[in-house]
């Protein structure tokens, strides 16, 4: 159990997808102008990651991995090269479902998120989470923990960033640094802060 907590801690802080690996930046920079939109997107990302990573894990372990198809009598088959297409397919399907669900049950959020919800399909952070899961060789329960942690970390990063950005709206910034340049500087500072959590872990 403590191992799962550690996985979540690592994914949120030291290996934060946005602040340590710079994933999902395009959406990150575009949506963080308003706190409540960022909040909604953060929730959506947590949902998508927590669901897609375990599903992709199951698919990878059952079908794609080298030797995974032994139950079907094909122990030498290695379909791991199909993981990119498979993962994107799963993510696209899930985002579509989430889109329809939000439209039905929380239409305010749905219209506020607008194009950014379907854009989660090609968000580096979402695909990146699944690819990291493969690299880290997690099992199913660890994948759930990692998915949750990865989504939570990204959401946390975008929320903090949006809050800071709101406060910087009226500040007098050198022209060349205005907008994108400043965004990078601020994110750099955030990244520095989060990397201070490296090595943080729960010891039973």
């Amino acid at each position: 159990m403590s191992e799962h907590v550690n996985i979540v801690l690592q994914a949120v802080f030291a290996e934060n997808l946005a602040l340590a690996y710079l994933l999902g930046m395009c959406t990150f920079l575009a949506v963080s102008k308003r706190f409540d939109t960022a909040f909604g997107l953060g929730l959506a990302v947590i949902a998508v990651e927590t669901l897609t990573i375990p599903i992709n894990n199951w698919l990878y372990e059952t079908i794609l991995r080298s030797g995974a198809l032994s139950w079907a009598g094909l122990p030498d088959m290695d379909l791991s090269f199909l993981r990119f297409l498979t993962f994107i397919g799963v993510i696209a399907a899930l985002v579509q479902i989430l889109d329809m669900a939000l439209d039905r049950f929380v239409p305010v959020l749905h219209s506020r998120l607008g194009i950014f919800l379907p854009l989660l399909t090609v968000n580096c952070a979402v695909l990146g989470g699944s690819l990291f899961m493969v690299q880290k060789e997690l099992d199913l329960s660890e994948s759930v923990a990692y998915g949750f942690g990865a989504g939570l970390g990204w959401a946390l990063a975008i929320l903090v960033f949006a809050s800071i950005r709101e406060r910087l709206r009226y500040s007098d910034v050198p022209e060349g640094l205005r907008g994108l340049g400043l965004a990078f500087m601020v994110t750099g500072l955030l990244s520095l802060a989060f990397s201070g959590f490296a090595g943080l872990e729960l010891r039973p």
Partner: protein
Amino acid sequence: MAAEPESPLRIFATSAAIAVVCSVMVSASVAYFRPIQFASAAFETNRDILEAAGLIRRNETVTLRTVTERLEHLEVRLADLEAGAFVAGDDPASYDFMKAATEPANSIEIPAQHDIAKLGRRSKLMPVYLAMEGDSIQTIVLPVYGKGMWSLIEGYIALSGDFLTIESLVIHEHGETPGIGDRIESSDWLDTWRGRQFAADGHYVPLKIVTAAKTDATPQAIDAITGATVSTEGVVSLANFWLGEAGYGPLLRTLSNNPGQPQR
């Protein structure tokens, strides 16, 4: 009259056509690259083994020819770990011990109290690499692997002819955190492994992690890497596992009792 662009037939036909073309492209490239990938992977493996044995320097760039040449200096034998003896084998160098570890017939389950590397099972047979000097073994290179923080860490440990002293540790593959955990690959840290001993007074003493100040205190001390505790522990645990009773221990005992011919 051609079907309208949005008609279901058109959608299906176009998608199917593109899907087929992409499938062919992907499958063809995978089929083409697979053998090259195996050769490249084998090259990297052999390179790391040679580096562990001291036949290649750390940052030396080598060609396939150099690797093949220098590989001739090493003798590869298949060892039965539990029996502590060499066994005959067709092609010891290509024995896939990681795969064997997943096959019940070719592997044994590691008792929980010994499984410090968190492997679950290990192969019954492992290939080992011997650098001979005349009739005696000068250096023995042992493949080792175990669980790190995030990933399986694979490497090679080279022991000198007394089967007690570590000559070098080479990390072959890992998936630890870049910038933090991947310091297990740094020359500075790996250099501290040289000369460490995992035995004292004739019996096995496991390696221990210490903080910097006490590195030279005992021959079993390994310096911790700041901020990469779990990765460091992973490497030390896997070393202790493989050098201990549940790993190469019996083999090393046999060999040190018979400093002459390795048992044939």
